[in-house]
C-alpha cells in the first residue's frame, strides 16, 4: 500500500457531497476516478492534499503517518495535485517550469534538457522557453502544466481532468507518458476524467451518491 487517506467527508451548500470515504493507492496503480459532475471529485483531490479543510483525515504514505499541518509541505512534495484549470504564475514558460525547484522541499534541481524532452514528447517543442505564458493557447497551457508536473517527479500524481483541451493524438501521448512514469515501483497515478483513458489502467473508482465504489471492469 502506497497511500491510505481517510476518512474524507464534504458538504456543499448544506448538502452532503460524500461521507466516510477513504482512498487507497497501491504501488504501480493507474486509477481512473469518474462520477457525475458535482459529485465532489475535485473537492476529494483537494482534501487529500489539504487545500480544502478536512480536519479528521489521516494520511499514511509509504509506511509513514503525515501529520496535518506540520508535514503537509513534505506530503505535497511527494503527492502532487495537477489542478484542472492549469494555473500558471505570471512570467515566462521557463519560470513556470522552474519555480517549484526553488522551494525548500525540492529534492532535485531544474534541468533544461529534461524539460525540453518532455515538451517535445507533448508536441510543444515549437515553444521558446523565454515566451510569456500569457501567449499560450488553452491546450498548450494544459500540456505545459503536465510537463511541470512530470518534471517534478512526484511519487503520486493526482491529475484532475488532464485531457482538457487536448486532441486525440495528444491524449494518447499523455497517457503513454503517464504509463511510463507511474506504472512502476513505488509510484501511482489517480486520474479524474469524464473520458476513458486511451490505454491500460489498473482500477476504476466511481464517486456517486456520497460513496466511492470500486468498479469491476
Amino acid at each position, binding site marked *: 500500500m502506497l497511500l491510505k487517506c481517510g476518512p474524507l467527508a464534504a458538504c456543499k451548500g448544506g448538502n452532503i457531497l460524500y461521507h466516510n470515504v477513504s482512498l487507497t493507492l497501491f504501488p504501480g496503480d493507474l486509477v481512473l476516478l469518474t462520477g457525475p459532475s458535482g459529485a465532489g471529485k475535485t473537492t476529494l483531490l483537494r482534501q487529500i*492534499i*489539504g*487545500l*480544502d*479543510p478536512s480536519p479528521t483525515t489521516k494520511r499514511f504514505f509509504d509506511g509513514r503517518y503525515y501529520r*496535518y*499541518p506540520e508535514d*503537509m*509541505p*513534505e*506530503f*505535497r*512534495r511527494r503527492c*502532487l*495535485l495537477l*489542478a484542472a*484549470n492549469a*494555473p*500558471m*504564475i*505570471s512570467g515566462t514558460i521557463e519560470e513556470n517550469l522552474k*519555480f*517549484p525547484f*526553488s*522551494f*525548500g*522541499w*525540492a529534492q532535485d534541481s531544474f534541468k533544461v534538457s529534461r524539460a525540453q524532452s518532455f515538451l517535445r514528447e507533448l508536441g510543444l517543442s515549437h515553444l521558446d522557453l523565454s515566451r510569456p505564458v500569457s501567449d499560450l493557447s488553452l491546450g498548450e497551457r494544459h500540456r505545459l502544466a503536465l510537463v511541470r508536473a512530470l518534471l*517534478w517527479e512526484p511519487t503520486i500524481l493526482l491529475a484532475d481532468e488532464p485531457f482538457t483541451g487536448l486532441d486525440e493524438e495528444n491524449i494518447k501521448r499523455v497517457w503513454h507518458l503517464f504509463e511510463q512514469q507511474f506504472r512502476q515501483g513505488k509510484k501511482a497515478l489517480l486520474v479524474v476524467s469524464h473520458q476513458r483513458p486511451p490505454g491500460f489502467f489498473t482500477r476504476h473508482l466511481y464517486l456517486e451518491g456520497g460513496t466511492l465504489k470500486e468498479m469491476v471492469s
Partner: protein
Amino acid sequence: MKAYIVLTPFDLFLSSFLVLLAGFFSVVLRLGVEKRLLVAALRTVVQLSLLGLVLEKVFATHAPFLVIFILVLMTVVAGREAVSRTKYRYINMFLDTVFVMGVTAFVVGTVVTQVVLKVKPWYQPQYVIPIVGMILGNSLNGLSLALDAFLDYLVTRKDEIELYLSFGATRFEALQLPLRYAVRRGLIPIINAMSIVGVVSLPGIMTGQILAGIPPAHAVAYQILIMFMLAGAYALGTVLVTLCAGWKLLDQGVRLATEKIKT
C-alpha cells in the same frame, strides 16, 4: 515678543471668502457640492477649534497617563479608519490594524521622541502627540494601501498561491509574491513624497513652521527628520500588516482560507 503675525478672528473671517468663492463656482457651474462644501468648511472650523482647546489643556498637563490615553485613542481611531478603506476585509481585521498601528507608533515614535529629540519629560505632549499623530496618519495610508493590495491578490490570484502550496511551498514561500506586491504598493506614496519634496512640493508642516517665524534651515532639519520617520512608519506598518493578514489567511500555514475574506 512674537516673531510671527498672529491671526485674529477677523483675519479668518476674511479668508472665508475664499471658501465662498468655491461655493460660488459650485452654484454657477451646477457642481452640486455647495452643501457638502459648507458642511466641510464648518467641520474644519469646529474640529480644529476643539483640537486647539484640547491641545492647550493637554500641553499644559503633567499627567503622563492622560497623554498615553490620548495616544491609545488616536491609535484605535486610526485602526478603524484603515479597515474602512480596503475593498476586502477579513474576520477581526480591526484587531490586526490596531495592533500594527500601535506597534508602528510605539517603535517609530520612541526612536524619534526619545532617541533623536530626547524630549524631557519623556511624555512632553507638545512633541509626543503631534509626532505620533503624524506617524499614525501616514502609516494608516501605507497600511491600508498594502492591505488592500494583499487581499486583492489573495482573492484574484488564489490559483497561483494554491499552485505554490501544491508543490510543497511553506508558509513564507507561498506568500512571498503577495507580500512583495503589497509592501511595494504600500511604499509608493512615501517614496514619491521623498523624491519630490522641496522641488515640487513644499510640505505643509514646513510652510507652517516658516510662517511661524522659524529659520528655514531649522525647519528643513525638522522636515528631513519627519520624512525619515514617515519612511520608517510606512515600512514597518506595511510589512507588519501584510504578515498579520497572511498569518491568519493562510490557515495553519498550509491552506488559503479565502472563505474568511469578505467584501
